[in-house]
């Protein structure tokens, strides 16, 4: 029965080996996608290369469908897969700040690791900046602790929030992703033409 670790198929120490192997696959995929390169990541925000959106939504849809069917077949106890609690307002504000940092720095935490390990100095400096940002957050924590713990809604999933079945939400997310892919392909064509026109 899955998830295997929750059913004691292996020890904590072995889980660290699993972490390392899964990390290798994660890093490999990120690099293959071009995510060790800040120019490709930043291009997402200028619409001329939408790889970030395409890779992210394909990954989300793949894992989401896998979870849905494994749970439906009875192979997986979905309630044992850890879902973090929703703290709506801090998460929205944190997301906005993160998006701003993304465009300024050119990476997000995971991709900066790949960037640094493939020799990019901007990725290494970004990593140093990230450690500094986490440290500033830690030092400021007593001041923002109340806000950090505000609008706590508990473990809320979209099916529960929208009052729809799990399968229905999966279907809607797939539709949304397909729509986003079509828009991305169209946007790339338009923007590439425009950028070429600007340079001439």
């Amino acid at each position, binding site marked *: 029965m899955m998830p295997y670790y929750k059913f004691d198929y292996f020890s904590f120490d072995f889980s660290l080996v699993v972490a390392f192997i899964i990390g290798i696959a994660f890093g490999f995929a*990120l690099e293959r996608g071009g995510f060790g390169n800040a120019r490709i990541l930043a291009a997402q925000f200028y619409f001329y290369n939408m790889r970030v959106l395409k890779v992210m939504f394909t990954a989300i849809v793949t894992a989401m469908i896998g979870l849905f069917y494994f749970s439906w077949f009875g192979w997986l106890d979905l309630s044992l*897969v850890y879902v973090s609690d929703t703290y709506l307002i801090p998460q929205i504000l944190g997301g906005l700040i993160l*998006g701003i940092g993304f465009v300024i*720095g050119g990476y997000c935490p995971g991709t900066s690791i*790949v960037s640094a390990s493939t020799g990019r100095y901007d990725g290494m400096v970004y990593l140093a900046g*990230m450690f500094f940002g986490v440290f500033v957050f830690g030092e400021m924590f007593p001041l923002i602790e109340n806000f950090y713990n505000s609008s706590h809604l508990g473990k809320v999933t979209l099916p529960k929030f929208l009052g729809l079945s799990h399968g229905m939400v999966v279907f809607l997310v797939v539709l949304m992703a397909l729509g986003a892919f079509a828009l991305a392909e169209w946007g790339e064509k338009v923007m590439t033409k425009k950028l070429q026109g600007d340079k001439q």
Partner: protein
Amino acid sequence: MTTLTGIFSKKETIVEEKTFQPKPYSNPYLVGLGLGLVLLAAFVIMGRGLGASGAASTIVAVTVSKVAPEHAAKNNFYKEYFSDGTTSPLKDWLVFEVIGVAVGGFLSGTLAHRTKRTIEKGPNISSKMRLIYAFVGGAIMGFGAKLARGCTSGQALTGGALLSLGSWAFMFAVFAGGYLTAYFLRRQWL
């Protein structure tokens, strides 16, 4: 031509000089499928998703507690990352995963001849300015990721696939923050 020499390499010695042009990045939908399967593997094997910024928190918390133990003990943020004292807090799932990410990225980049000491930047910005932006952006993102309780990996990817409300709100906020700022930073990238 390189594939042909690969097939015949048993009979012949290397005839031509190999060129090491960086290979183009892979098809994004295929990469997405691969990344989704990695995420799914984490879910079904471990019962948890992927992450990145959490490892940074552990390292910062451990460093602060080494330098100023009393100061760190008073802080609820740092305290969350201390273990019960029997094992090192660095013996953490995300820390090992992130080491793997560095190794995996290096492997992939090196196999495709993309590993290179360089600075990724737009044509209209100096290297020095780009590095300053990288540090500032990293710091802003480190702060934001802690406020949101995760980054693109832990919230957007993992929480997205688990259909968590907070993660989806976070994801749209990231894109909103990015698109709202992009115009002002176009000189850095375009």
